[in-house]
């Protein structure tokens, strides 16, 4: 088989279905990100915007126990966001979703961070029997975004905490510098599509779901536009350099680094390091490394050398993780091998609320036409 064509500037290649190359061989993914970066505010502008944001957060939180929510995963981005919030004089509540896959590193990092920063922590622990059944149903459906369950629950937990404490700002560790390359079509699914997740589970699940939180588009619209809760990509308000942030966290806040981004959960590690590349032909490292190239934090050669390594730097860890993941999900070796050999099925094979939203907006437009607004 011919190797997929690769962008001459970043590491994206034809495994991204909607990639387009220009005459010089540069792809649309890094071009778009370059354009985004070029349109980013200057350092002065950014600092001014940060001062405004911090002031707004404080005002909105006056008289309340907390003025913002910071979701923490144990990873570097969210840990650093929490420190920045404290350093800016904000009064954050740290919120964590535990879906039963936390690594010791994640627990250590969260526990150490909130103790040292003296920040209150709130957690939601997903019932494991339910989470397992949801995850198993996504395996049975052969859909790509098994992490949707975790991400959706994470959103639900953060917004729930915001509602409970009347907090108007959720500061997120998402950021342009390391996540600026847009996810290619088909590499994931919307985290706001609770209808899709429920439909997949209805078809393939066994255990009734009573407590597993899922976040729907409708809920998001309520939270965002009725309750006016803001989701802020907090790190974009700073000159965020991952390497120096990591060094700071390690030296000053007792942080233990991960070998690779998003490896705070054993499942995520196995999903990104084994399931995605082997079953779906998707290597998400291309996104993260390309973003680092475009933002000037890593050379293309350096990134390429990293990409050529196995997603699992340590084969023993791969073996251990496989054993652990199969045991926890209750798959036999043979069942898992069959799963890996089956072709993928798109999420669109199941009902979705994304289509419903489009209909809603079409209906609204039509209505506007009728009432003449």
């Amino acid at each position, binding site marked *: 088989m011919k190797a997929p064509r690769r962008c001459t500037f970043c590491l994206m290649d034809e495994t991204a279905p909607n990639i387009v190359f220009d005459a010089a061989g540069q792809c649309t993914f890094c071009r778009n990100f370059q354009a985004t970066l070029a349109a980013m505010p200057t350092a002065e502008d950014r600092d001014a915007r940060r001062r405004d944001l911090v002031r707004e957060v404080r005002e909105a939180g006056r008289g309340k126990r907390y003025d913002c929510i910071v979701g923490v995963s144990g990873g570097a981005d969210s840990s650093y966001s929490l420190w920045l919030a404290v350093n800016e004089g904000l009064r954050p509540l740290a919120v964590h979703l535990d879906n039963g896959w936390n*690594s*010791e590193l994640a*627990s250590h990092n969260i*526990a150490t961070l*909130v103790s040292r920063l003296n920040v209150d922590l709130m957690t939601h622990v997903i019932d494991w029997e339910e989470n397992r059944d949801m995850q198993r149903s996504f395996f049975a459906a052969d859909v790509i975004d098994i992490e949707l369950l975790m991400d959706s629950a994470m959103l639900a937990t953060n917004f729930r905490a915001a509602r409970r404490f009347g907090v108007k700002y959720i500061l997120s560790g998402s950021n342009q510098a390391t996540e600026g390359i847009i996810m290619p079509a088909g590499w994931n699914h919307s985290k706001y599509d609770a209808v899709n997740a429920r439909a997949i589970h209805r078809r393939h699940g066994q255990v009734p779901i009573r407590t597993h939180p899922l976040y729907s588009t409708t809920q998001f619209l309520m939270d965002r536009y009725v309750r006016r809760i803001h989701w802020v990509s907090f790190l974009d308000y700073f000159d965020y350099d991952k390497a120096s942030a990591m060094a700071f966290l390690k030296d000053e806040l007792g942080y233990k680094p991960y070998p690779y981004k998003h490896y705070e959960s054993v499942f995520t590690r196995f999903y990104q390091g084994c399931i995605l590349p082997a079953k779906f032909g998707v290597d998400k490292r291309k996104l993260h490394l390309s973003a680092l190239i475009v933002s000037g934090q890593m050379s293309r050669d350096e990134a390429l050398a990293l990409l050529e390594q196995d997603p699992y730097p340590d084969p023993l860890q791969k073996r251990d993780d496989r054993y*652990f993941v199969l045991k926890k999900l209750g798959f036999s070796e043979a069942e898992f091998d069959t799963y890996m050999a089956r072709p993928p099925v798109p999420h669109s094979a199941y009902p979705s609320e994304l289509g419903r939203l489009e209909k809603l907006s079409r209906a609204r437009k039509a209505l506007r036409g009728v009432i003449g607004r």
Partner: protein
Amino acid sequence: MLRTRVIPCLLLRNRGLVKTIGFRQPKYVGDPINSVKIFNEKEVDELVLLDIAASRMDALPDEDLLADIVSEAFMPIAYGGGIGSLDQARRLARLGIEKIIVNSAALRDSAIVSAIADQLGTSSTVVSIDVSRDWLGRARVFDAVAGRRLSLDPVEHARAMAARGAGEIFLNSVERDGAGRGLDLALIEAVSAAVPVPVIACGGAASLAHLREGANAGAAAIAAGSMFVYMGPHRAVMINYPDYGALERLFA
């Protein structure tokens, strides 16, 4: 090895981990396999696992689950819950459970203690005693299966169990469970003075200072649940365990 052992005590219920307050209100705190894996990576020296539903529901220990848990743990595990016969104890030992904890079975017939001790050795035989104080403040043995306080004096009971071959006494305080206001020091003193075997004290520890108080009162080991699974005012579920160095200094 620390002079005083510090042991996370995890409660199982329907294949999930829970934490109680005063032996009631079980709150789900996670999946046992993952939690044990994290404690294992924290290099905790040993672990106590108690299935709080097994005996009450008259169910047998969940051997499949225990086998999965044991395979995640390099440290010795003591297990209690639903063990009513020597045969059962032997099956668990074969799964890799290091210490067998009996409680209600020993209340009904103490012969099971000598039977297990003869077969598996006293060092693998632990008798757990739940203690509740009555309105006069007198310590009495609590029967969790019947859900009531007995007239039995815990010191007498502990002495009898040690004589039967218990290699350790696991002493748990009902009222202090999950309360975080310190261990029942008078009880620990009385029981550890009365028995020739080590006493593991449980119930009420929330800080390093509490652990030291327990050690000073005579406990050979302190077990704690909330302290190692909860953090902060919202009782956030987050597995944590003190640094080894901090514990060494604490008991130096």
